[in-house]
């Protein structure tokens, strides 16, 4: 009898621990008070963060890339995730959101309803985005065209379809801070912000562990492309990437490699965004990549 009582307590303690560990986190409600976003600056944040690459409708080109209807699918070992509608539609997008809702989504992966997002949404990277940039991005996003396309449900099986469990995943992977602890100078620091936070380059170019977390000790060393038998995301560290800083910056501007082959696949989308950034930002990304440790 007594044994059962202890076991019962143990189960209760376990449940309480699970409940605490898996609770979706949010910003302090006053953390963005007094901030007014600047939509023009937000347009650059939008390009740097690559929002359209995932949230524009599949195959959208030109102006259509500003209609963030969602629908693009992302294969993973855990199932297929579909980018949601983040146009300013009140019913199907983020029309009813505040800037703080966007910040909770980007920095904590928590929805306005207090649910965990799946990390196909790169909040592990965006966690390092500055609140001022998020306020600017919000100001820009709400100026974009409305789409009333409903978001498609993710195709994810048990047990990954239990969102609460994502709290444990987040506990393991979110909030680790910068990978490059000491950038040394202001240019590399800017590059670190663009690569590690907004650009979320590590989400593809860093190999993942069995649970799908980025292996920070193998930062930007490349990895297999999910759903592809032979393709690989290339290693961006000086071990493999021998291009000069000028060549890297030029690639991010035009898509041309030093041999004047051109970027293809998902990287062609990325170049569409990096081409919009000021030249100093592309140079900063290049400086950061050159400053990565070679091992």
């Amino acid at each position: 009898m007594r044994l059962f009582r202890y076991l019962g307590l143990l189960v209760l303690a376990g449940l309480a621990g699970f409940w605490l560990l898996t609770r979706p986190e949010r910003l302090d409600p006053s953390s963005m008070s007094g901030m007014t976003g600047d939509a023009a600056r937000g347009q650059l944040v939008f390009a740097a963060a690559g929002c359209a690459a995932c949230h524009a409708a599949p195959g959208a080109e030109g102006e259509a890339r500003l209609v963030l209807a969602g629908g693009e699918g992302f294969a993973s070992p855990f199932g297929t995730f579909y980018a949601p509608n983040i146009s300013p539609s009140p019913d199907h997008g983020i029309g009813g959101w505040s800037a703080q809702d966007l910040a909770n989504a980007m920095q904590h992966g928590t929805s306005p309803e207090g649910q965990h997002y799946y990390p196909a949404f790169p909040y592990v990277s965006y966690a390092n985005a500055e609140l001022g940039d998020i306020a600017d991005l919000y100001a820009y996003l709400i100026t974009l065209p409305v789409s009333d396309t409903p978001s498609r449900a993710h195709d994810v099986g048990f047990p990954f379809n239990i969102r609460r469990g994502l709290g444990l995943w987040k506990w393991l992977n979110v909030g680790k801070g910068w990978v490059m602890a000491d950038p040394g100078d202001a240019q590399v620091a800017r590059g670190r912000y663009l690569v590690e936070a907004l650009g979320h380059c590590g989400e593809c170019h860093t190999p993942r562990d069995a649970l799908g977390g980025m292996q920070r000790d193998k930062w930007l060393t490349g990895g297999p492309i999910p759903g592809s038998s032979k393709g690989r995301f290339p290693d961006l560290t000086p071990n493999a990437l021998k291009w000069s800083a000028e060549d890297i910056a030029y690639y991010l501007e035009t898509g041309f490699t030093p041999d004047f082959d051109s970027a293809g696949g998902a990287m062609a989308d990325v170049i569409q965004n990096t081409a919009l950034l000021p030249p100093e930002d592309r140079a900063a990304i290049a400086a950061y990549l050159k400053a990565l440790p070679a091992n």
Partner: protein
Amino acid sequence: MISKARISVAAVALVAMSGVGFAASHSQGEFAREIKARQAQMTLNAFNLGILGAMAKGEMEYDAEAAGLAASNLAASSSIWMPTAWPEGSDNASTEGTRALPAIWAGDSDIGAKAQALSEAVAALQTAAGTDLEALRGAIGPVGAACGGCHKAYRAEE
């Protein structure tokens, strides 16, 4: 006297060798000539883009005449129209030595529109290349975007 075992070993070796020979000829793949021809066209494009890009990057001094010549060569090489080098079945799912995706030949393929976009960007580059360095710099980006537009949709990743 030769043992039966030795005969079997020799037979296995012969079969293996013929297999190697078959594999080698197979890796040439169907449509190898066509694929080589269209890749040669890409190489020509890249060669002249390289001259323009080197000037844009500041690795080579800007020379209006050389830039104009490279741009008109690019216009010529990129407009070579040879559908015979793109036969159906010469995609990366059906043969070797190519990253061309089957989508090029699909019913909803917009490869013609992509080619048109490239031709427009190259025409603008041709005007800009001989003007001055700033104009050249500005006109290369759209050419890169046109290359990427097609490679994103129709070329497999490495």
